[in-house]
């Protein structure tokens, strides 16, 4: 492997995959780059070879073999049913797709690295959760449906693959909610709504990962050797209520019994995608520990959670209902008024005294 890396990226038409491909193209130590997807990517890619195929297609195995791929970056994991075209299809793509890809990978002697874009959703979201998940912790109540369950199953298969092929470095990256100017996710679409729904009586703790950090982490994983599981998230935590205030939006707390109904209404309106498995997340949230990412993986995210969110708000041009400069101006004016009144009262009392 002295002549450089030969990398294959699945799900290349995704926004994040496009940015990862571009980052890898810019590197000299990546000699060949292949992208697999069913849809043609719209990114401005220069030397990536595009393979129009489903991950489940035997063609992928042939490409892996012929091109002597040594690193597979698996990004074809859909997080919302609407993005995949229905929950059944999402499951098919995510779980069966990964199984087929791993089956193909197992037969490739040149393979040295496998990078999976996993998600912190694998920890689920419950009130029994620890305040902050370390990679080694298994949640007391693992996710039972939806994306979280998919990810848990995918990770299971990838782990089994790692056991069968001990010579392959398997890197699993558990990303917190990704935010950025170009990405769209179930969570970010919440902020498309004029008023942001939340669950009455609950305030989830959130963590975000900036897309630039995500790209940098994936690039580092694809070009180095970092076997293991790593949580990826920006430093710090935001409450949902705080995020809504930072965006200048107004929260509309929905009582718990009506949450599912409101979510399906929102989904049907087509303005935001709130998958049913996200509802637990909107109640309890989730925080992950990124010590291992910094110590063992050797990457410190450039954006904190708050900076990520503020950058997201700026880039998506989310116009707040509550303008922050206005609030600051009000504060100053009211304070001035109070001081003036105090002064006046004082002067009046002095005047009376002096006039005597």
């Amino acid at each position, binding site marked *: 492997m002295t002549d450089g890396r030969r990398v294959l990226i699945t799900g290349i038409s995704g926004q994040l995959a496009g940015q990862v491909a571009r980052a890898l193209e810019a590197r000299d130590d990546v000699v060949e780059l292949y992208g697999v997807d069913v849809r043609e990517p719209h990114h401005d890619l220069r030397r990536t070879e595009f393979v129009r195929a489903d991950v489940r297609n035997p063609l992928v195995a042939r490409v892996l073999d012929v091109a002597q791929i040594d690193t597979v970056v698996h990004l074809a994991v859909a997080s919302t049913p609407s993005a995949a075209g229905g929950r059944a299809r999402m499951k098919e793509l995510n779980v069966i797709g990964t199984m087929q890809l791993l089956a193909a990978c197992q037969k490739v002697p040149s393979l040295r690295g496998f990078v999976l874009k996993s998600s912190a959703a694998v920890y689920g979201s419950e*009130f*029994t*959760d*620890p*305040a*902050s998940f370390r990679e080694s*912790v298994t949640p007391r109540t693992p996710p039972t449906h939806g994306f979280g369950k998919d990810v848990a199953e995918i990770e299971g298969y990838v782990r089994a693959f790692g056991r069968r092929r001990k010579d392959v470095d398997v890197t699993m990256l558990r990303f917190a909610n990704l935010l950025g100017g170009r990405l769209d996710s179930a969570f970010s679409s919440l902020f498309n709504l004029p008023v942001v729904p939340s*669950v*009455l*009586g*609950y*305030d989830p*703790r959130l963590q975000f990962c900036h897309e630039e950090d995500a790209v940098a982490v994936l690039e580092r994983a694809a070009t180095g050797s970092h076997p293991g599981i790593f949580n990826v998230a920006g430093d*710090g*935590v*935001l*409450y949902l209520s*705080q*995020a*809504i*205030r*930072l965006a*200048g939006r107004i929260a509309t707390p929905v009582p*718990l019994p009506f949450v599912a109904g409101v979510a399906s209404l929102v989904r049907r309106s087509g303005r935001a995608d709130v998958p049913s498995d996200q509802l637990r997340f909107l109640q*309890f949230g989730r*925080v992950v*520990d990124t010590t291992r990412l910094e110590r063992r993986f050797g990457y410190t995210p450039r954006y904190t959670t708050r900076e990520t969110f503020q950058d997201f708000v700026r880039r998506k041009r989310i116009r707040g209902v*509550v303008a*922050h400069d206005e*609030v*600051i101006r*009000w*504060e100053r004016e*009211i*304070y001035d008024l*109070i*001081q003036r009144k*105090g002064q006046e*009262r*004082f002067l009046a*009392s*002095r005047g*009376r*005294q*002096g006039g*005597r």
Partner: protein
Amino acid sequence: MEQRAEVISIADARDARDRDTTARPRCAATTDAGAPCRNYATDGELCRVHAARAGHAGTPRADRDEPSAADPEAPSDGSSSEDEPMSEAADDAYERLADEARRRGWGPLVDGLGAFGGLSDADLTEGLGDLLAFLRRRLTGDYEIDEFGFDEDLTTSLLIPLVRPLHRYYWRVRSHGEEHLPLDRGGLVVANHAGTLPADAIITRLDIFEHTGRHARELGADLVFRTPFVGEWARKTGATLASGDDADRLLERGELVAVWPEGFKGLGKPWKDRYKLQRFGRGGFVATALRAQIPIVPTAIVGSEEIYPMVYDLRVVARALGLPYFPVVAQMFALPVLGPLALLPLPSKWVIEYGEPIDTTAYGPEAADDPMTVFDLTDRVRDTIQGMLHRNLMGRRSVFL
């Protein structure tokens, strides 16, 4: 200040000290009522009011001879007296009343009323400014929370001032042994739990904050975090789930952690079992303290048992609602007479004692995996607290005074 000399309570002594040695110097003049002026000094050593008076008409006492001069009184006094002899008589009467009340144990209430009257203009402007800044921060989301969800801004700017009157004037908490609380390193405060509703957790936490300026991070039961609103606010005030993982993490950061190992068994025990410690969980808190090698501060809270004396536990209702107990408290019998007012907790007099810290370094961190050591240490903590409870119960004059 003379009657202060006989006060032996540490809390009161601290209050007095606070009053004397605040960062900003107070005005040196005496008000017309004869009490020291409570305004801040602006002009040398006098406040605005007295400085202006001194400049205009010699000594402050001089212009009191003129009948018309009574009007521009110091706004700080709260006693805008129009007629001198009348005002003096009223003040005398007030002083006599206050003395009498203090002697009967209502000192904090008197001080509270006095503090209201003593609010000066500058204080008010400052307070309103702080409030405005707080509102601005809340509206724009400009505050930090930690990974456990602790919102320090909300807690110190809003919630603590709201609970403080309960601590100071309603339950008149008197505490001793606060020198046992660690100031700059981790520690585990272990206390008894009682009173049907966990008011003792809130009050003890505030008491620790008043003494040390540290936020004790409470560990709460699953039920707390499952319940809407309760779970949200518990997290925002710094509580987290009572699990070894979270406790270790907090202690690693050098936080002061507070636990009530009796849990619901202590909170929901019947009136006849008051001040009898229940089983101390499974000793998880001891294992945590051993792992982190930090001292355990046994703490006894007297008075919390009497806020809601539980006379009956409606088990059927509790089971139907998924609660650990469903209390019928003594106050409920007054419902037909007093209406919802009857559901207020009783204003018992509280005493909190922080005991001598139990050192865990002698056992070493490996002892956390030795069940025998953990059990022994758990029993030792429990016995210590039980002993402290008995001692403080003997020492109290009555439940309410």
